């Protein structure tokens, strides 16, 4: 049953990446390379932590629905704010996307670590560190009969609602992108905004909506990490480089959220495979942690050499659109 345990852990590692990559795919389809995703995911995580912390501190008894809803809403508001900052600067003010994204990451990671490290002190409570086990236990509620179903239950049914939501969101995004008019318009904006504009599509509106919704989805990955994976314990820099890995996953999934579901499990597996190899010393583990990045680079090279049209980034990715510029 080691394999089942490995797969279960791989899926848990993969869920934050799946959220991040689905969000980033929506954003990139509108022609915006948002390098702020790592910061946004931190923001989503800390947003949930702040909400849960304040609720746990102020409520006499925890109401299960509110205990999930408050952190969820706070997390979404946090990442929405980040998305709006990014949109305002890159869409309205046409600033450079890479620079804005990196600044957003600096800000978001700093914000997360700052409030994670000093939230207790700022609110004047005497708790040494933030430990939201109570809230986390509500988030981690899984199907009651999962454990009775052996390996199948362990791999597929033992997860919490946020994990299933990630898969559903990815499938829904995939459907919207390839089978609806809204998705068609969005792809048109990312491929050639001038043509889309001429066809009467409101380019700015599509960019704003795609980026902000994408940010909110990515932020949920941060929330999942804190509440489910880390049992409600915030540790500074604990989220690590998962945000960048999510961006790597976008390439691996060739900009399709449904492929991203399998990709996220693969990446999650690669991320933890070093724990499952016998007689591996610490330095060897460090080499193994390279794997997801090496795989992404190889993949990037292969798709660029083969240059199949459906496997390329949106052609206007990273470029600002200004109507008067021809």
């Amino acid at each position: 049953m080691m394999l089942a345990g490995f797969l279960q852990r791989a899926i848990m590692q993969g869920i934050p990446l799946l959220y991040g990559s689905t969000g980033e795919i929506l954003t990139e389809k509108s022609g915006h390379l948002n390098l702020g995703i790592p910061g946004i995911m931190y923001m989503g995580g800390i947003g949930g932590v702040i909400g849960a912390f304040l609720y746990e501190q102020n409520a006499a008894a925890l109401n299960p629905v509110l205990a999930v809803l408050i952190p969820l809403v706070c997390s979404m508001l946090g990442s929405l704010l980040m998305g709006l900052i990014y949109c305002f600067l890159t869409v309205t003010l046409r600033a450079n996307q890479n620079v804005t994204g990196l600044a957003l990451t600096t800000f978001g990671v700093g914000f997360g670590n700052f409030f994670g490290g000093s939230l207790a002190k700022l609110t004047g409570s005497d708790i040494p560190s933030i430990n939201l086990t109570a809230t986390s236990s509500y988030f981690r509620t899984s199907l009651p009969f999962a454990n009775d179903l052996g390996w199948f239950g362990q791999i597929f049914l033992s997860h919490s609602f946020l994990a299933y939501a990630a898969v559903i969101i990815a499938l829904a995004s995939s459907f919207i992108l390839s089978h609806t008019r809204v998705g068609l318009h969005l792809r048109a904006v990312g491929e050639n905004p001038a043509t889309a504009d001429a066809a009467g599509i409101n380019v700015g509106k599509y960019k704003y909506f795609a980026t902000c919704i994408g940010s909110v989805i990515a932020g949920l990955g941060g929330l999942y990490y804190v509440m489910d994976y880390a049992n409600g314990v915030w540790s500074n820099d604990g989220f690590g480089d998962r945000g960048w890995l999510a961006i790597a996953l976008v390439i691996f999934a060739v900009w399709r959220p449904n492929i991203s579901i399998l990709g996220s499990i693969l990446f999650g597996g690669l991320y933890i495979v070093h724990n499952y190899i016998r007689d591996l010393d610490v330095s060897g583990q460090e080499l193994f942690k390279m794997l997801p990045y090496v795989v992404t680079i190889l993949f990037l090279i292969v798709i660029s050499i083969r240059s199949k049209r459906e496997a390329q980034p949106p052609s206007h990715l990273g470029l600002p659109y200004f109507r008067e510029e021809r």
Partner: protein
Amino acid sequence: MAQTQTTKEPLFHIAKRDSIVWWKAWGIRTAAILIALIVSGLVSFLLTKENPLRIYATMIDGAFGTKRRIWGLVQELAMLLCVSLAVTPAFKMRFWNIGAEGQVLIGGLASAACMILFGESIPSPLLLLIMIIASVAAGAIWALIPAFFRANWQTNETLFTLMMNYIAIQLVSFFVYKWSVPKGSGQVGVINRTSHAGWLPSLGGHDYLLNIIIVLLITVAMYVYLKYSKQGYEITVVGESENTARYIGIPVKKVILRTMLISGAVCGMAGLLLIAGTDHTISRDSAGGRGFTAIMVSWLAKFNPVYMILTSFLIVFLEKGATEISTAFGLNASFSEIITGIIIFFIIGCEFFIQYTVKFREKEAAK
């Protein structure tokens, strides 16, 4: 954009400016920095409930308070400036090298390897020479790999260089565990603590003076290279339009490879200065995010090496100042990243008002 009925002329529209007088441009930038400082002062005030003036005073004290702090500030400035200079030629060519973090680390790793492996056996001047060659070559190779694929198959360089960072970080982690003292601690500790083999010499009793002089020389060289050399011109043309470049006979592939080689080599040099000239140890955090900050520094300075001294000063000043605020008022050290983020948002935003003008509808505009 504002949603208005099509029958009516929109309330305002945006037009690109042909040019702007320099004092106006700098006025807008200064105003943005001032507003940003006020906003960050306000944020600090809300978090600490301290007198805002005291917060600013603490900031200045953190940056310039003592002679030691000033040296620290100038040293940090030099390091950030060095990485920023390194990424600049690539950016001018519109090659988004966000792999400076990895290129610096791999350069640092090469010099640390020389210090550890040859520290006892090779005389110091020769060792330093080997270190310089090794770290510059390591940085250059790390940058050439993505450049090669970009030049030949248009492989997306932003994503490629980004991934290379993490490979470099893990590689450093691997060697840090291999070399760790004591075994298994996961830390290298100060390399050659007693013999000082491979340490950059201190000039006139100042440890960092040599670093600062080297970076100044690189600054001047980069300015001349970009502004007055033929190769600098080729970089600009390739950046403006690859098709134009091809049309007037510039070998685009060669320019991409050559420019990334230079970019990576300077990053490798920065790695050497960090390991051999400053830290004398190595860890996965040795580059300290400078590779990413440098991108903002370089862009804010409009890719001009001389302005870059100003912009890296601004960033380093904020970091030092905000760190002092966080220690003085008992806040978490990540406070400086929040402040840096806010200021950069404002500066990024203000560029819009330099490049574009907002024109209001005629009736409203009539005075």
